[in-house]
């Protein structure tokens, strides 16, 4: 049994197919990384919160981290496919070169995938921890979200209630989410947050919108007949507009 790493005549790294693969590896990595990142970033919605910007840069980083691995597999496949092809109804002669295993290649492969895995974990944990902390912010605006088949209701601290969500820009918000009937999932698309609405429980998620504009809330959990239509808008407005809206609605809603 021969080790792939042990030098043969000539040294293994000087063999033409190895050289070809090495060049292809660089090219494949670059192409995969670039195309992968562009595909994700261009397809994704424009961010309306730092959370969402974070998600987008995570995708960027992960794609570039995965690109060398995918690139190596791709490069080896291309090298293999561009040499020694055999067509016909009978098999080609058996390959004379026999590498039945290679502890060193295996070890290297496992170590590299381990490191990548660790990297993904650490990156994920850091962001996760920030997201978790945001939920505990007592200074934040607190809004109760109630899903029911097939509308969203939003209750504000001063008693106002709406079916379109209103938020001031650059202020942290904590949502307390529940449901009246079956499971729904509260998703503010452009802000990159999502949390299920469970009947009988209250769950939390938090975000700080950083753009003025109108964004989408969609239900992300199949909840029956009109699930596809269970969507509404988020209006992110200036603090002044928000205060005005809130007082106007507190009056009407409280009286109703």
């Amino acid at each position, binding site marked *: 049994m*021969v080790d792939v790493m042990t030098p043969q005549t000539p040294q293994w790294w000087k063999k033409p197919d190895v050289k070809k693969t090495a060049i292809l590896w660089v090219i494949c990595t670059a192409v995969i990384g670039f195309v992968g990142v562009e*595909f994700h970033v261009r397809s994704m*919605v424009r961010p309306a919160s730092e959370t969402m910007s974070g998600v987008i840069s995570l995708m960027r980083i992960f794609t570039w981290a995965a690109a060398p691995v995918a690139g190596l597999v791709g490069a080896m496949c291309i090298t293999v496919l561009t040499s020694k092809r055999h067509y016909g109804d009978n098999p080609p002669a058996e390959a004379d070169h026999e590498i039945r*295993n290679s502890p060193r290649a295996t070890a290297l*492969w496992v170590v590299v995938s381990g490191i990548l895995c660790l990297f993904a974990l650490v990156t*994920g944990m850091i962001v996760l921890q920030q997201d978790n902390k945001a939920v505990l912010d007592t200074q934040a605006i607190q809004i109760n979200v109630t899903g029911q088949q097939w509308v969203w209701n939003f209750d504000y601290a001063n008693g106002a209630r709406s079916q379109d969500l209103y938020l001031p820009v650059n202020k942290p918000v904590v949502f307390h989410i529940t449901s009246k009937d079956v499971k729904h999932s509260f998703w503010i698309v452009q802000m990159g947050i999502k949390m299920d609405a469970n009947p009988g429980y209250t769950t939390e998620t938090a975000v700080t919108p950083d753009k003025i504009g109108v964004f989408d809330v*969609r239900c992300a959990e*199949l909840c029956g007949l009109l699930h*596809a239509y269970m969507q509404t808008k988020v209006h992110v407005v200036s603090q002044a507009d928000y205060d005005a809206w809130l007082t106007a609605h507190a009056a009407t809603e409280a009286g109703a």
Partner: protein
Amino acid sequence: MTTLTHKSVAAPGKSIIEKLNVFTALALGIITAVVVWRLSLAFLPQDADGATMFTREDKITLLSMCGWFVGFMTGIGALVGPFRWLMGKDLSHDENMFLAGQDMGPKRYLRYTTDHKVVGIQYLFITILIFFLGGGLAMLIRTNLGHATGGWIHPQAYNSIVGTHGILMIVGTIIMVTGPFGNFIMPIMIGARDMAFPRLNALSFWLIVAAAVPLMWGQFIGGISTGWSAYNPLASQAPLGMDGYIMYICIFAVSTMVAGANITTTVVKMRAKGMTWNRTPIFIYGTVASVALALPAFPVFFLSQVLSAFDRALGTTFYNTAGGGSGWLYENLFWIMGHPEVYVILIPAIAALMEMAPVFTRRPLFSFNVAIMGIAGISGLSALVWAHHMYMSGWAPLLNAPFMITTELISIPTGMLFLVLVGTLWRGRLWMTMPLMSIFALLWNFMIGGITGIYLSDVPADAFLHGSMYVTAHFHYTLMGAGLTGALASLVYWFPKMTGRMFDKTLSWVSFWLVQIGFNVAFVGMFAVGLAGQPRRVESYAPTFNTGNLITTIGAYTIMIGMLVLLYGVISSARNGVKAPKNPWQAKTLEWTVDYPIPLENFDVLPIVTADAYGYGKAKS
């Protein structure tokens, strides 16, 4: 061999065994169902006027379906053996020979036949049927979503189509490799005369047939409007069709457990002399890992549905928070089954391609040990990752980090499988055939499926991606791009052994490219709309998603054409394809040492194994 003597089985005064077949089963099933239905209509008490839950109709439906099940299984002959045991006897030799289906022609495919080769073909047939039905539903979904101005299918019907498509395909992909090839090929590959428990083998197949009927029945009583995951409390609110889903899963779970016990025992106990674990082909490892994963997973699935049935029919509140239960209980039970299940699907398909890789590169499998470590690592870890499907459920936010760790760790053993495949291809002599190209297709598709899996396993990214079309595209890349690709390659590869004829080469190529290109077009489009914010399981969507959905629909039609070409290839090649030589691929596993038609007990003389099956080429050192 005394067992091979020919006895006249059609002696006058046919025994009960000889009278039973699929038609008696259908008849008895229907009669019992109707009788139980009338009886329960007559005798079950009305729901009290003030009752909070109206459960009578669910009771009636479930009881009738149980009636169908008992009637069908009795009618097919599953109870003959157990009854004999009750009377302190067993089946006679003649009866066993009859059950094995010796010299009975095509009729044995319609009976409770115990020969593993017959069961394999039966499985192949039902797998094709399931894919045909499930694929038809997929085309309805894609046609509905392809239209820019939104759907033409009623939302209730649409939801039911989505759910039925999902659960049909899940069952189809679970059985697509271990069913046809695990039953037909596996025993020959290990040099055995049959499975360890031939009657259980027949049982596992006919249970699937029995299960399919309640699912179809459910379509006519409100459908399965909850998606394949059938989350509660939505499922307790759903129409009576849900009871069809429940019965389907319960019966199918039993079938899986029976098959799992049978396959595991066969491999452990019945390998040929000399076939040590080091010499056991990798496909066998894949099959065993798959059913071994299913063994603990499916009882949980069964349980989850039994509780669901209780909630619906008896007014219990296992999943109802108002009554002290919790929908999260259901989610946990479901995904404790659900994640291992995706590897139940994937592992045998990859293992089959690993089996083919040495054959079509004419060199040994690279690092047999690493392949086994990969399979074992995936199997072990996959029991510990289920809550990555529940990151956003709110169940236990503090457990998100640990589940993120276990999920991302799976990429290490998964990487090993890639290493084995590319290592085998490297410096191989490529024999350009459809199974060989399927290995490349799998590497491509599973790379995409695996990497997107890592994005999904990252909790903050999943907060955006969960519940979107991105998830749908991810699991189609793994289940279809990787799993189905392996199954189709297996079909072409083992076709000569199963039918005696070669699969038409041109048709295999045409269908391969249509399916693979269509697939990638379809699901890249789906990734894009997912990233743009389209939720899954919706029957209409915002205009921004038009282009992506149209692309997906075009891809889906391409897949459909490819699959129809494949189906045509199966039928035409089986009827008048080129007669296959004994070992058309010059492979070294045992199934290629037997002649077609394969004798009832496979080998006249049991083989003795002296080396592994990968000794291609000469060792150079």
